[in-house]
């Protein structure tokens, strides 16, 4: 168990190191003189040179790399010239919005996947199963920004039941006093039901949009697992003891089928992270993803680079946590037996 963990930890550290090298190289590969970009086209050579030295660009590469990594882990992520603020401040201000959206998307994707996977396998109706599989392929095949646009067109412009792309709250609503930064939580703390409702309604469509691809991925995995588990003998035994179909599904099939979905945690996080870059802009959601998308267009790579490295670190950490958790939950991994040997 401990060895399993340390093996994985070593791999994760190597992965983060690799990621930092990639992010560093990418920044060096950018054409043009970054110092000149910052001070502007009208600056004299002398000013450019001073900026160049201030940024440490005259140092040898390994010194630059070391400075880059230590700055990153000390939480100094550089200065964004297109915003005119440090990257830290920008991310700190925008992260709660992205986290709130991601949390809701995750809940939507997971509950949706469990419900629909059960629907498609419980009675084994070909028509229901076909429909569920159809939604999964739609989720896999549709670019998230397109789902968002279609949803806005249908539910906001045509039917008028949901708000348009106006961000986290209606323009007239004042944000709740900040405690966690998550509006739906903060409005409960402050006791403002109207704000809670407004925040929730604004979350629905973006979270659904973000959830769709993750749902498609999860529902396929769960469905396959449920089918596999339902062929196992312990289910036949439980049914022949007279346990009802629902109870044997709930108590025996579902827990076993859910287990492997934990390992998909990293993949889902990846989908939510990359999804946020693609989705937030569509809804004018003031999160990190939108800031990255804007930074790409204005060629402000301090933000992009931080985002890339942060995403990689989060991804590695989640994968490590998931692997460790899996070892704790599943006795087969804990004892060192291979998962396939049954």
């Amino acid at each position, binding site marked *: 168990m401990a060895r399993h963990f340390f093996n994985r930890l070593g791999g994760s550290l190597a992965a983060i190191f690799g*990621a930092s090298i990639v992010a560093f190289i990418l920044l060096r590969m*950018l054409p043009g003189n970054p110092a000149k970009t910052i001070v502007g086209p009208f600056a004299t050579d002398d000013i450019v040179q001073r900026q160049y030295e201030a940024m440490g660009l005259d140092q040898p590469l390994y010194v630059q790399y070391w400075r880059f990594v230590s700055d990153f882990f000390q939480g100094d992520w550089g200065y964004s010239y297109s915003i005119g603020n440090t990257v830290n401040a920008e991310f700190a201000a925008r992260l709660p919005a992205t986290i709130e959206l991601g949390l809701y998307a995750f809940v939507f994707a997971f509950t949706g996947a469990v419900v629909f996977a059960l629907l498609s396998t419980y009675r084994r109706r070909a028509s229901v199963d076909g429909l569920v599989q159809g939604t999964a392929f739609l989720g896999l095949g549709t670019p998230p920004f397109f789902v968002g646009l279609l949803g806005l067109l249908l539910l906001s412009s045509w039917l008028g039941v949901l708000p348009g792309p106006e961000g986290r709250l209606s323009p007239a609503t004042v944000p709740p006093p900040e405690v966690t930064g998550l509006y739906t939580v903060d409005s409960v703390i402050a006791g403002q039901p109207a704000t809670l409702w407004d925040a929730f309604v604004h979350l629905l469509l973006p979270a659904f949009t973000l959830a769709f691809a993750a749902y498609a991925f999860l529902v396929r995995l769960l469905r396959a697992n449920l089918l596999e588990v339902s062929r196992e003998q312990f289910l036949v035994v439980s049914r022949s003891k007279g346990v009802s179909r629902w109870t044997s599904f709930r108590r025996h099939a579902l827990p076993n089928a859910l287990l492997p979905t934990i390992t*998909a945690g990293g993949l889902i996080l*990846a*989908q939510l992270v990359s999804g946020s870059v693609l989705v937030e802009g569509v809804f004018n959601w003031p999160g990190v993803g939108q800031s990255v998308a804007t930074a790409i267009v204005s060629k402000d790579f301090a933000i992009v680079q931080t985002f890339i490295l942060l995403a990689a670190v989060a991804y590695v950490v989640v994968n490590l946590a998931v692997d460790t958790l899996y070892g704790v939950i599943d006795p087969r991994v804990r004892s060192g037996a291979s998962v396939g040997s049954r």
Partner: protein
Amino acid sequence: MPAFGRAWNRVFGNAASAVAVILLAIIVLLAVLGPVIWTKDPLTVDLAAKLEAPSLQHPMGTDNVGRDVFARFNEGARISLLTGLLAALIGGVLGGLIGLVSGSLGGFTDSGLMRCMDALVAFPPLVLAMAVTVGLGVGLKAAAIGIILTSIPYYSRIVRADVLRVRSLNFVEAGVALGATRRRLILRHILPNVLGTTPVLVAANFGYAILTLAALGFVGLGAQIPTPEWGTMITEGQQFFLTGSWWIALFPGLGVLIVVAATSMLADRARDVFDPRGEFARG
């Protein structure tokens, strides 16, 4: 070949697959024959005919500077399909080679190559593709390279696992006993036996390539405006989407949806048929 016929039927034989094949065929046809059957130019600006709804004159309407969306859709199909196919194939060849070498040689080469693959999968795929595209200076070619790079670990890991399986089979050991060279073992015994699963892998990766290309185009890293790539077309149509001119962004979006959903569905079915135990399933 009755066995082949049966497999064919199981992959393409039901209604949903038939629909997928037909829709896919239509898009491929539009991509290949587009300029022949629809002679309007995808880049010609006609300000007198801007934001026109779909009609006989313009089957998919016109965009904000009066360009014909149908012509742009066809050109976009050509760009997306060709880039997606090339990326999936090149990624398949490179990733497959790495998997083959890594699995056959083992030892230091194997662990070295696999650690490199680990470093590549340390990024969420789209984020790595973004990073590479930014580093290479943005554009269709940079986006394609980003997609290829993110596909390589996917292929190499599956092919390597397959090589390890084949390598332990009796006929390979028989080859070793007969004194076959390593080169001969790899090329004549291992390679032909792992080759069979690769078309399904390429098909599944093709969908990913198209989707990622559109995503990169959408955020402005892929094909640059005014190139009619589907993702950039959605970006261009986005601001008019909610103000009534839904057709500019709708059709390219549907194009991506159809191609990706259809190919991943067909690849899925093919995998069920050729690999019933799902050993080589992604993930």
